[in-house]
């Protein structure tokens, strides 16, 4: 790490700054970072950015083309599409945030414990993840939503339930490579219990790859959420969820292209941004490439 001796920042901040400068150096991850910061700012300042009330209907003004005071036009109920997209950013971020904080810890805990303990516990946990992995994630979330009832919260729960197995697998694979290492033996020699070793030695080692996987996963989460919204099982109208907006706009797609194009572009941009950022993070957090900084 290129710790600048002049800076007096505390260590975690310094590390964060290093990663940030590394990300900004490559154009693709800088683009990802830019799009995501725009997304976050948009969500945070939605009431000031949106030009109209996202729920206000204006039936005299339906299906207006972009222009005329409506930046991205209006939908079939005369609602301003730009404002709906802006408010929809909040929903998208909520979904991503909630899914990630559910999925990350579950995957990490299941993966590291089964990787470290091995034996029967490992077999049982891995067969459970196998069951989850054997369904396409959209189908499985569909099943969960169908059981729980369609709503945004249930969609989040369903996505969370289906997104942890790949992360658990990754954490387990990482753990398997570390558990035989000498420093784990040294920790055992100090008298550390398995729990202490998993929490203090193994989890920090797995964290970078899990974080990267989580970031890459966010793109999938957005797509699944949009897919569920499109199928009418996610956010319910009149919530301005991007997938649901595409679903309702589909009927007018031939004559009014702007109804599906702008939400579609938003989904594309955001999931692309997460993918690029995940790629950049992989380079930034990979210890083998530390010397390139």
């Amino acid at each position: 790490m290129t710790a600048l001796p002049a800076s007096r920042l505390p260590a975690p901040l310094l590390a964060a700054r290093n990663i940030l400068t590394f990300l900004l150096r490559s154009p693709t991850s800088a683009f990802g970072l830019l799009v995501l910061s725009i997304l976050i700012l948009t969500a945070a300042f939605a009431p000031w950015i949106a030009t109209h009330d996202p729920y206000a209907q204006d039936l005299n003004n339906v299906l207006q083309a972009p222009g005329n005071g409506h930046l991205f036009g209006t939908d079939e109920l005369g609602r301003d599409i730009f404002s709906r997209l802006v408010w929809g950013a909040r929903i998208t971020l909520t979904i991503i945030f909630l899914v990630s904080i559910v999925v990350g810890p579950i995957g990490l805990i299941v993966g590291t414990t089964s990787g470290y303990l091995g034996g029967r516990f490992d077999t049982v946990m891995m067969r459970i993840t196998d069951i989850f992995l054997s369904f396409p994630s959209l189908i499985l979330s569909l099943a969960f939503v169908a059981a729980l009832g369609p709503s945004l919260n249930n969609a989040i729960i369903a996505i969370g339930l289906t997104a942890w197995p790949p992360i658990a697998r990754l954490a387990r694979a990482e753990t398997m490579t570390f558990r035989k290492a000498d420093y784990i033996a040294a920790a055992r020699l100090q008298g550390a219990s398995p729990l202490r070793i998993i929490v203090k030695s193994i989890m920090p080692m797995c964290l970078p790859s899990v974080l990267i996987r989580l970031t890459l996963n966010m793109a999938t989460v957005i797509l699944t959420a949009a897919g569920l919204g499109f199928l009418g099982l996610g956010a319910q109208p009149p919530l301005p969820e991007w997938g649901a907006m595409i679903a309702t706009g589909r009927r007018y797609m031939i004559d009014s292209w702007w109804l599906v194009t702008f939400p579609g572009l938003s989904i594309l941009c955001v999931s692309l941004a997460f993918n690029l950022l995940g790629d950049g993070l992989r380079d930034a957090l990979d210890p083998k490439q530390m010397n390139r900084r």
Partner: protein
Amino acid sequence: MENPILEVKNLCIRYNGAPTDAVRDVSFTLGRERLGIVGESGSGKSTVGRALLRLLPSAQVTAEKLRFEDLDLLSLSEAQMLKVRGRRMSMILQDPKFSLNPIQRVGHQVAETLLRHFPVSKSDARVKTLEMLAAVKIRDPERVHDLYPHEISGGMGQRVMIAMMLLADPDLVIADEPTSALDVTVRLQVLNILDGLVRDRGIGLIMISHDLNLVRNFCDRVLIMYAGRVVETLNARDMDHAQHPYTRGLLAAQPRIGGSRAPLAVLDRRPEWKEEART
């Protein structure tokens, strides 16, 4: 010997799935002294060390007697074993490059031993850690405390390792080739530190090594192992009067400054040594 720290009688170790025992009928006792175990690669030296700490989950360990102070090591549960490891018995590993956790600061790793075994606060642990780092002759322990393992040299790493394992004041330390990964000049330094600490604190030390000279100078007694068996037990100063042909072979295979320039003797390994009855 009165009051031995460790008594081992007929220790046998067999790795799961292996056709024969990796270690057979190893017996020795250890008081407050320095015992060396020497042998070739694969003769079972390290396996004995690890078996004493019960760090071999994939092996069957049997013995007539395996007594560490008041504890029977064979019958202890894993939870009881956790209290023994690090606190009363610990082990110094071979290569500091691999045996220190690369993503934890050196000081935190050393302090782990204390935090695990004693109800101390973090600041107290820090003070004790700094003292211990100073005791292993690390200059400027305040600075080293906050470094990562890749930022310190190998010799320093090994001293950190020693600090880590001696911090809780164990009664028995097993040093598994503690100096093989170090160069010759640093080796002596590390050995001196280890020697001083062992002497001052009255710790029993088992030194596993393949370096005959080191062991004969450093230890009080020496076990010579061959193919999983102890072929001879000697006082270090009686090394020249070794009886067993294998020990003699090992000694003869060493070059000597000022010795004869003739080719060194080739080590003779006879299969019957694996089988012969213990003497």
